[in-house]
């Protein structure tokens, strides 16, 4: 290492060393020395020499539980308007929260309000939607009774949704043929998609769930080929539009097997 004292009081330090690639490099630095005098309180300076004491090991290091670390940067921005800003921030957060609640479509099963059923103020005083749902189920049952018992055969043109197909301009004959194949009318039937079903949902469960809203044309529960468990969604076709609509209204947000179902039109909303 070579140190040259320059005329202007600076120093030039030239150093030869190996860099990390193993090559010899020459480093030249120009240094200006400046002596800064600092006045320190004598007592404070003396205290800086204090020896360690207390629960310390004999070698002078602190016991392991004592440590001093440098923390994360903490912001302290002093502002006259800090309080107002904080207030605004809180209000904004509150609004955001309210908006989030609105958009997430939390629907109470008792009063149809935007809160969880458990928090419903009317949950003890009002009849739950379930009971109303049960009442709705009674109506088609009555119709069925008229037709000769719940299990009696109803020809397709007598069914509740038959009018709609009649309006479609199809003849009864071609309609019947399609029905026999099972899938010919699939696209015409109003179909709803139910998602968030639990793994062990069976077709029978979905049937039971959807039957009260009207006669079902088709129930399809998506199952995993290898395991046979439900994949979490199902398609249900009704014969008529109203039944499907009613089913969506009731089943969306309905609790089933500890999950909250969501129901919508299968083909993106008719």
């Amino acid at each position, binding site marked *: 290492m070579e140190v040259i004292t320059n005329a202007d009081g600076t120093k030039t330090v030239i150093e030869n060393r190996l860099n990390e690639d193993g090559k010899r490099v020459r480093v030249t630095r120009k240094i200006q020395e400046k002596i800064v005098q600092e006045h320190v*309180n004598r*007592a*404070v300076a003396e*205290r*800086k020499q*204090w*020896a*360690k*004491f*207390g*629960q*310390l090991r004999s070698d002078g290091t*602190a016991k392991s*539980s*004592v*440590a*001093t*670390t*440098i*923390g*994360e*940067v*903490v*912001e*302290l*921005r*002093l*502002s*006259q308007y*800090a*309080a107002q800003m*904080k207030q605004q921030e809180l209000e904004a957060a509150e609004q955001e929260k309210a908006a989030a609640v609105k958009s997430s479509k939390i629907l109470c099963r008792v009063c149809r309000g935007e809160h969880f059923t458990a928090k419903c103020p009317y949950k003890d005083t009002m009849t739950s939607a379930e009971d109303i749902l049960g009442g709705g189920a009674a109506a088609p049952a009555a119709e069925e009774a008229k037709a000769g018992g719940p299990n009696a055969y109803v020809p397709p043109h007598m069914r509740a949704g038959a009018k709609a197909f009649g309006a479609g301009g199809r003849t009864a004959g071609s309609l019947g043929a399609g029905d026999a194949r099972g899938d010919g009318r699939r696209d015409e039937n109003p179909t709803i998609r139910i998602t968030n079903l639990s793994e062990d949902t069976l077709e029978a469960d979905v049937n039971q769930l959807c039957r009260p809203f009207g006669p079902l044309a088709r129930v399809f529960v998506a199952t995993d080929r290898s395991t046979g468990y439900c994949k979490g969604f199902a398609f249900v076709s009704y014969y008529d539009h109203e039944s499907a609509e009613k089913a969506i209204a009731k089943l969306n947000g309905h609790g089933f097997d500890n999950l909250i179902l969501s129901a919508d039109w299968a083909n993106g909303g008719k």
Partner: protein
Amino acid sequence: MRPLLLQGHERPLTQIKYNRDGDLLMTVSKDKIANLWYSHNGEHIGCYVGHLGALWTVDCNKTSTLVITGAADNTARLWHAETGRMLHTWELPTAVKRVEFSHDDQYVLMVTEERMGHKSGIYVFAIDISRPEQSDEPIVILRASGAKPTVAAWSYLDKFIVSGHEDGSLSLYDWRNEEVVQTAKAHDSIITDMQMWKDGTYFITSSRDMTARLFETATLEPMKIYKTDAPLNTATMTPTQDLVILGGGQAASEVTTTSSRQGKFESRFFHKIFEDEVGRSRGHFGPINTLAVQPDGKGFASGGEDGLVRVHHFDPEYFKFKYDY
């Protein structure tokens, strides 16, 4: 600000204090030891070991040669600051909640807890710096007529002792004559901390009623009120800027029920004169139990229920802060 984290305690901090020159920081916690640190770099100097119970309070004299601690083992102990040697032990009937040297270092006051049939009191002992043994005979014992005192401090010229009580009231004692000069209703709830301005003419109190207040010592006249939204454990005043720093948060028992964001564990800065909140500084995971400002106003330290001491040195922007009026 990049705070220094002092990890020397295993239990919640109860009090931290700078010495008068501001180069040393004393911390006490419920884990029975008192620690001494350099405030500029957080280096640990030593532990004062000997207490058998949780420590509640600490103070040192003006020349930083003696340290006194008060604890739940019903003793107050005097230590040689430099070596950590125990010099004297005062046996008191109950736990010592607060100790403080008088301005002239001749006396020390001790506030004792009300327990097991013993009434609480404020004991004043004389300190003789020429020898280690101290008198065990108190000069006076001040007994409160109403609720028990929780904190106390020396007034200007050591003329009076001010005490803050569990019911939120304040008393001003002419301590030599054992007389109550003045009483005032200050807070709606327990007074948790009381810190004198350096000349003893006014002081700040914090309370669990979510306010901190400034009082004039001579009259106990309320001067300022700082309102927050959390119970306060401590309040202190900055010597150079006209600010007060308040610390608190939910009661320790309720902390686990909410997240730290809602816990309000920040140090809050209020303007001393205009009573407006001007800033906050985050960091602790639990309520702040104690705050102290470096006597030259260049930093502050906070001790929390989380067992950590955070030593902050203010950024240059802090000193540029001006309140527009």
